[in-house]
């Protein structure tokens, strides 16, 4: 077991890095542990709603966050996935996949969320063989190809728009009218001549040989009409699943696995706070995650002062 820190931050996305910056400036003895850096931001093409930047790519914004965090001497354990979080004898103990343990008096969970899967035949078989959950990574591999993008939120539209500059044809499939609410993005997608909007359908199956060759879609919710589309790729952008499994049993979650927090980011467990997309916060936005990360440190600081 490592020495007990005052504060432990799990996750290193916008919420985690903001929390680390705030904690370091408050001279809190802090350790940050995370599987990756940047979380979902690092797989986002372009960001136009983070104040201070008219346009910034996801990886660029992550670099900015990281550079600011690295100004401070913060103990960082990156590339370490947390698999279990417990409270033992008044301390939080995080166990990582490599078997290491870290302990702290207070803890902020900022482990974010990962893409949800479709759960249809062929999805696992063709993962990496045409099925992708990271358009930012794989879009350049689909030059002049025909692809399907599944989903109707901002991520699905953003991926479709980026793909429209690379692929020859994009089917944008969603079960109901787009949920996307970013007007400039919606305008861009509507203006792209190679994006075909298909509303009221869900994916039934993904088929192929060595690689994806096509998909079958069916009407939603009735499922009484089927269509086959010839595609070389399927980009899945249907929402998120919180990365909260490691905290099961310790903290209260809703049925989706999001950690319940109040407006001070408190989880109900003394000394345990959570911020960003892993929580029940209604809107999953970078600026909101960052803001919550700051709030969490204020709350944790107050807790540490009281418990001294």
């Amino acid at each position, binding site marked *: 077991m490592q020495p007990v820190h005052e504060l432990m931050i799990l996750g290193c996305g916008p919420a985690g890095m903001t929390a680390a910056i705030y904690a370091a400036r408050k001279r809190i003895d802090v350790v940050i542990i995370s599987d*990756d*850096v*940047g979380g979902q931001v*690092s*797989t986002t*093409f372009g960001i136009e709603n983070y104040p201070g930047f008219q346009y910034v*790519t*996801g*990886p660029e914004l*992550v670099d900015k966050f990281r550079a600011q965090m690295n100004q401070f001497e913060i103990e960082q354990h990156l*590339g370490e996935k947390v698999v279990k979080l417990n409270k033992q004898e008044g301390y939080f103990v995080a166990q990582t*996949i490599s078997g290491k343990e870290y302990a702290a008096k207070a803890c902020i969970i900022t482990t974010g969320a990962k893409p949800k899967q479709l759960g249809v035949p062929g999805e696992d078989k063709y*993962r*990496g*063989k*045409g099925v*992708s959950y*990271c358009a*930012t*990574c*794989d*879009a*350049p*591999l*689909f030059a002049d190809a025909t692809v399907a993008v599944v989903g109707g939120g901002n991520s699905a539209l953003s991926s479709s728009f980026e793909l429209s500059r690379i692929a020859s044809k994009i089917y944008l499939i969603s079960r109901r009218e787009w949920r996307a609410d970013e007007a400039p993005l919606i305008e861009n997608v509507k203006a792209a001549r190679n994006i075909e909007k298909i509303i009221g359908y869900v994916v039934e199956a993904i088929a192929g040989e*060595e*690689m994806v060759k096509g998909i079958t879609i069916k009407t939603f919710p009735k499922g009484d009409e089927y269509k086959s589309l010839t595609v*070389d*790729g399927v980009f899945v952008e249907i929402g998120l699943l919180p990365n909260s499994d490691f905290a099961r049993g310790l903290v209260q979650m809703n049925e989706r696995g999001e950690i319940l927090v109040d407006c001070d980011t408190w989880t109900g467990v003394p000394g345990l706070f959570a911020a960003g997309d892993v929580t029940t916060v209604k809107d999953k936005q970078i600026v909101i995650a960052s803001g919550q990360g700051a709030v969490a440190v204020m709350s944790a600081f107050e807790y540490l002062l009281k418990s001294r």
Partner: protein
Amino acid sequence: MVDIKIYTTPTCPYCLKAKEYFKKKGIQYKEHNVAQDKEALKEMIRISGGRSVPVITAGEEVMIGFDQSRIEKILEEQKE
């Protein structure tokens, strides 16, 4: 030391993570940007049977995606 090749796209964070890992460990690698290099893209699809980055090859071993524990194991085995 076994030859390491990594097929990447410039916007792929997992590629970056893999490269950071190699740099940290002082492991030399050759990078192919498949968003630019069409021949390398064809080669990547042929050896990995897929269309996804990163693809990492270590000698005869081919890995799709970056799995740190797997790469450590392979490098360890290659040493022996």
